[in-house]
């Protein structure tokens, strides 16, 4: 067991004019499940691969526990990785796939067999040990890839989008299984995904990256309730948070025909006469006055319904999503008014995108 520390770690690919990962500063606690999330090209996989030793660190240091592993060969880092395509050796049986690293480490046959059997039991793979990967289903292959990591009893698990090759239903099941397994084994895990739902449901903490820069790291709840900038606000949550640029009025922000009250100290931080206002679909209530929405689409999910529509603010037209009671959804084409729930509005600076106030 060990913690993982990135100290100002950068990675610049040859020929690239900007770093794939830029001065990443991150500490993962011993036994913690940390998820790296972000859109493609954000540097999440590169960060993971640098930890694995598959990518060179251009600048900075990576520590596992107290040990600087920046220049340690991958096999000596005491880590195990689960690949997106599983990278199972197609010509080897499940048992051989799982035991390969142990064989390379020079363990005895009996011990390898024992550890493979244990892992197989844990993952419900005992009946498939003699099969080749081609004779397994996608979910079974995924479990073999997990098993291959588990038998090594490493200090850190690295997982690079291990669920993206599964169908939707299996992905949800396996998501829970991996999280449970990790908690049971207590092994520090760094998990990469582009799916923010995966990130929010699995991680003890979530680290959001964009363009090689760390945007925010924190517990899923923190990211959801207090995004530090516009990017995190829009990225975390599904359906995404509504974000509009709105003019500032005396004592608040103009929303349709009402003024949403905001403290002067907060408004004073803004660099412009307007601010970016963010409000999640579930924090909008239907009211007599407020922001008018022209309803385009109503998605009925049973308990809830999502209203997708347009709202006008001055000359600009914004797309807007609101969650409403599923039993009384508005008609398509109708106009409704919504106001944000007090205390559930996020304000960001127009220029920097940084959060204003609390």
């Amino acid at each position: 067991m060990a913690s993982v520390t990135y100290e100002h770690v950068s990675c610049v690919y040859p020929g690239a004019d900007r770093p794939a990962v830029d001065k990443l500063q991150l500490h993962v606690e011993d036994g913690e499940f940390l998820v790296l999330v972000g859109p493609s090209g954000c540097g999440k996989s590169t960060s993971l691969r640098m930890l694995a030793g598959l990518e060179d660190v251009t600048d900075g240091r990576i520590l596992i526990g107290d040990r600087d592993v920046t220049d340690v060969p991958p096999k000596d880092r005491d880590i195990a990785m689960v690949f997106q395509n599983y990278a199972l050796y197609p010509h080897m049986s499940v048992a051989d796939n799982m035991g390969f690293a142990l064989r390379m480490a020079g363990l005895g046959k009996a011990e390898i067999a024992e550890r493979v059997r244990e892992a197989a039991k844990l993952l419900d793979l005992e009946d498939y040990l003699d099969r080749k990967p081609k004779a397994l289903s996608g979910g079974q292959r995924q479990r073999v890839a997990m098993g291959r990591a588990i038998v090594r009893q490493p200090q850190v698990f690295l997982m690079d989008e291990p669920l993206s090759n599964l169908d939707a239903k299996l992905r949800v099941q396996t998501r829970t299984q991996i999280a449970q397994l990790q908690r049971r084994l207590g092994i520090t895990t760094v998990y990469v995904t582009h799916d923010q739902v995966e990130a929010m449901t699995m991680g003890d903490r979530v680290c959001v990256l964009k363009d090689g820069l760390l945007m925010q790291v924190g517990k899923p709840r923190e990211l959801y309730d207090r995004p530090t900038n516009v990017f995190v606000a829009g990225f975390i949550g599904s359906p995404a948070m509504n974000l509009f640029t709105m003019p500032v009025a005396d004592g608040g922000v103009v929303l349709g025909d009402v003024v949403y009250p905001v403290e002067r100290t907060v408004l004073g931080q803004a660099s412009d006469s307007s601010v970016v206002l963010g409000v999640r679909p579930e924090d909008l209530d239907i009211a007599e006055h407020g922001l008018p929405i022209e309803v385009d689409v109503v998605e009925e999910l049973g308990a809830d319904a999502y209203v997708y529509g347009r709202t006008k603010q001055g000359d600009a037209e914004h797309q807007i999503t609101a969650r409403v009671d599923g039993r009384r959804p508005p008609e398509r084409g109708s106009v409704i008014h919504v106001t944000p729930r007090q205390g559930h509005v996020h304000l960001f600076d127009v220029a920097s995108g940084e959060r204003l106030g609390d």
Partner: protein
Amino acid sequence: MAVTRQDRPSGWYLAPALTFFGAFAVLPMVLVVYLSFTSWDGFGTPELSGVGNWERLMDDGRAWDSLWLTLVFMVLTWLVQTPIALLIGVWAAGRQRNRAVLSSLFFLPLLLSTAAIALLWAAVLDPNFGVTQRLPFLGDFNFLGNTELVVYTVVWVISWQYVPFHTLLYQAAARQVPQSLYEAATLDGAGRYRQFFTITLPLVKYTIITSTVLMLVGSVTTFDTILILTGGGPGTATRILPLHMYITGFSGYEFGYASAVAVLLLLLGAGLSLAVTQATGFRKMQSQQEGM
């Protein structure tokens, strides 16, 4: 519009392919079997001579010597070409720029005609004007005149000619191996040699078989390089069976007898490729990446 059974492409779409296959594969084979039972000097009308040619072939010591030599060539060229082609191919599969540049040099012999290659090497190895005279420290070898050495010389030249082609096959095969397998193996603690034997080699298995079959069949069909390089000599030191067939037919004008030899070669080639594909499970071949 729904596609009904009647809209399916008719068998006539097969006609062009079948015509070519019939005209250039089946028909010559049938003809050569027919000719093997005739006596024909290439000018008049072939006259049926029963099993005469076949009886003669059975008793023809030179033909059997040639067959033995063919098998020796087959084994030697395979032993020389396969490891070299495999290693260069796997090396050339890397995306590094220096590898790309060097590989294009390696592949140059592919662009040369057989005649050019044979003449080139005949000049290089000429005992009076060739490399042994220019570079005396190499020793005074008569590469083409010594009856024992010439066998290895011919194996070398043929390998030089065909290694690039097989290298190309291996390069393509090695490039198909997913990079993540090597990454997984690196993390599992396998070094480069280990990765070659544990990942690359098993995953290019079917290419090794393909390349082997091509080499074996090549050994019983091609003779042009040897014809130009040594003419089968000195004496009959390099007179492999295909060359024996050619010389019998086109120098001795015994097309009937040459056809009997050709039929023997045909059976040998077909038998060998069947045996290899059977023995290696190639017939059950599936994608090498199944399970990935």
